[in-house]
């Protein structure tokens, strides 16, 4: 009895500390005053101002477009690379894997500065394209790392069986291997998407004039204080993700019931 009570308390404390900051942020997005030190009454003005703020809106747009494009492209490249690496000989595979791990272990700032220097050296004007290339670059290793374990679990006889039954290698790849490793691909895609969404350091160095993402825009407000418009934006993003999760969970549990 006491134990179960303690267990619940423990879980409550964990969730409290995880979500309390977000709750505070949401509450203060409705604060009339710009300061977090005082509560001057309820208002929706920050939400209205948010949608009129050209800078934040274009930053949001850049962030989302970059996240979608870079994670999709990185997933395609990363999955192909993972399948290739999986079929390599032992020595070659471990060498390529080490090369893949290196950018993951490398501090972001080193990646950021070296990419910036590379782009400047190649005389590519810093901007949307370089930002996208940089995001694809740092996303690829994460996709490879999430797809490879699925390939290891894969029974290689399934592929051989498909070939025996007359499938061409590319047909077997599309119909047998890809569906089998799909969970790994989706994990890789989501990981790449979130990493791209909240990357600051690499973006800071690889973007040029006129293109900035949300993390850069928010960081640049540090001297004058974070504008409550950002609270409003974060609230909208949090609620959107929450709703998406609820919908996905609902649908998952529905299909599970049908399967049973």
């Amino acid at each position, binding site marked *: 009895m006491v134990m179960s009570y303690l267990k619940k308390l423990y879980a409550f404390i964990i969730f409290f500390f995880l979500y309390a900051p977000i709750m505070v942020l949401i509450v203060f997005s409705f604060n009339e005053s710009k300061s977090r030190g005082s509560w001057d009454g309820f208002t929706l003005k920050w939400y209205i101002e948010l949608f009129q703020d*050209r800078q934040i809106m274009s930053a949001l747009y850049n962030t989302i477009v970059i996240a979608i494009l870079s994670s999709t492209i990185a997933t395609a490249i990363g999955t192909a690379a993972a399948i290739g690496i999986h079929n390599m000989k032992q020595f070659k595979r471990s060498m390529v894997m080490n090369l893949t791990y290196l950018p993951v272990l490398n501090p972001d700032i080193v990646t950021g500065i070296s990419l910036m220097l590379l782009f400047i050296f190649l005389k590519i004007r810093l901007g949307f394209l370089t930002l996208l290339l940089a995001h694809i670059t740092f996303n690829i290793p994460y996709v490879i790392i999430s797809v490879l374990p699925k390939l290891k679990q894969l029974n290689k006889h399934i592929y051989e069986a498909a070939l025996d039954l007359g499938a061409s290698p590319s047909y077997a790849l599309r119909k047998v291997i890809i569906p089998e490793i799909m969970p790994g691909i989706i994990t890789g895609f989501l990981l790449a998407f979130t990493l791209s969404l909240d990357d600051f350091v690499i973006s800071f160095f690889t973007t040029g004039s006129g293109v900035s993402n949300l993390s850069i825009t928010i960081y640049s407000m540090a001297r004058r204080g974070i504008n409550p418009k950002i609270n409003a934006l974060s609230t909208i993003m949090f609620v959107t993700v929450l709703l998406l999760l609820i919908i996905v969970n609902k649908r998952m549990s529905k299909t599970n019931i049908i399967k049973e």
Partner: protein
Amino acid sequence: MKKIIKAVVAMVLISTVIFIMTGCGQSKPTLKVYNWGDYIDESIFKDFEEEYGIRIIYDTFATNEDMYIKIKAGGSDYDVAFPSDYMIERMISEDLLYEINYNNIPNYKYIGDEFKNFSYDPTNGYSVPYMWGTVGIIYNTTMVDDTVDSWDILWNEKYAKQILMLDSQRDSIGITLKKLGYSLNTKNVDELEAAKDALIEQKPLVLAYVGDEVKDKMIAGEAALAVVWSGDAVYMNWENPDLEYAIPKEGSNLWFDAMVIPKTSKNKENAELFINFMSRTDIAFKNADYIGYSTPHIEARNLLDEDLINDPTAYPELEDLVNCEVFKDLSDFLREYDKIWTEVKAR
């Protein structure tokens, strides 16, 4: 699974199309402006675009050093930037700025003469002041009963654990040097050592070394005394009338943010057009009114709220500023400041 793949492909296609579409139709000339975050009334962009047909691309930075890296490294092409005093000095000495043709900026005459010819730009050839202010002490009158007119109060044990210091090496070491009667641009190692000892002596009394959150803490009454910038002090006093601001008699830091044209600019004349536009009375007023910092623009200042014009926090008498100094670029000597600040913070 197929559905997911299809959805993903569709999303990519749609976003690419949107991207390409927004990429087109930008035949209008553009001007790239690089400013501090939340440091302009963004509605003025529209005015500028309507009047001159030049589209403004606006980016923001958080520190002078961030901006410096972007401009120094190349690869960017900003036309107008807003660095602070010591950074302007450094950029001039590294030949990163264009000399401004003041014939293209007739509105320069509205900038008060007392804001020209400072050490960071002694010939006034490279910069047009945008905002200015001081560093001082903000105190809560319900918690402090001594008169606040000296930095010494930050060393008073009566206020132990009620003092907030800035987590910024130049500012914190600077005011300590001022308290000891030295210049805040000193390159004398002995004077710096004395400042270090004073800061270490003060450390047990300090509640926290803070950045931007100082505003919320002071408004909420969490501390009695804090070192702040004057522009923020105006805002804090507005939110909590118990807070008063004082510039200590030993002197303090006087700072400027000014508009400059980096050498990355591809169209210097449009940049000058923009600077002139920013110095126009109605526009300078809009910005000063939105930001709440002190404007060096005389006509714009007169349009401001009566209370603000007469507020000595925002617009102190010039004789109060006699002992104040502008930060100078310390170049390599900055390492000594780094070292001292690390030692203080590590205690």
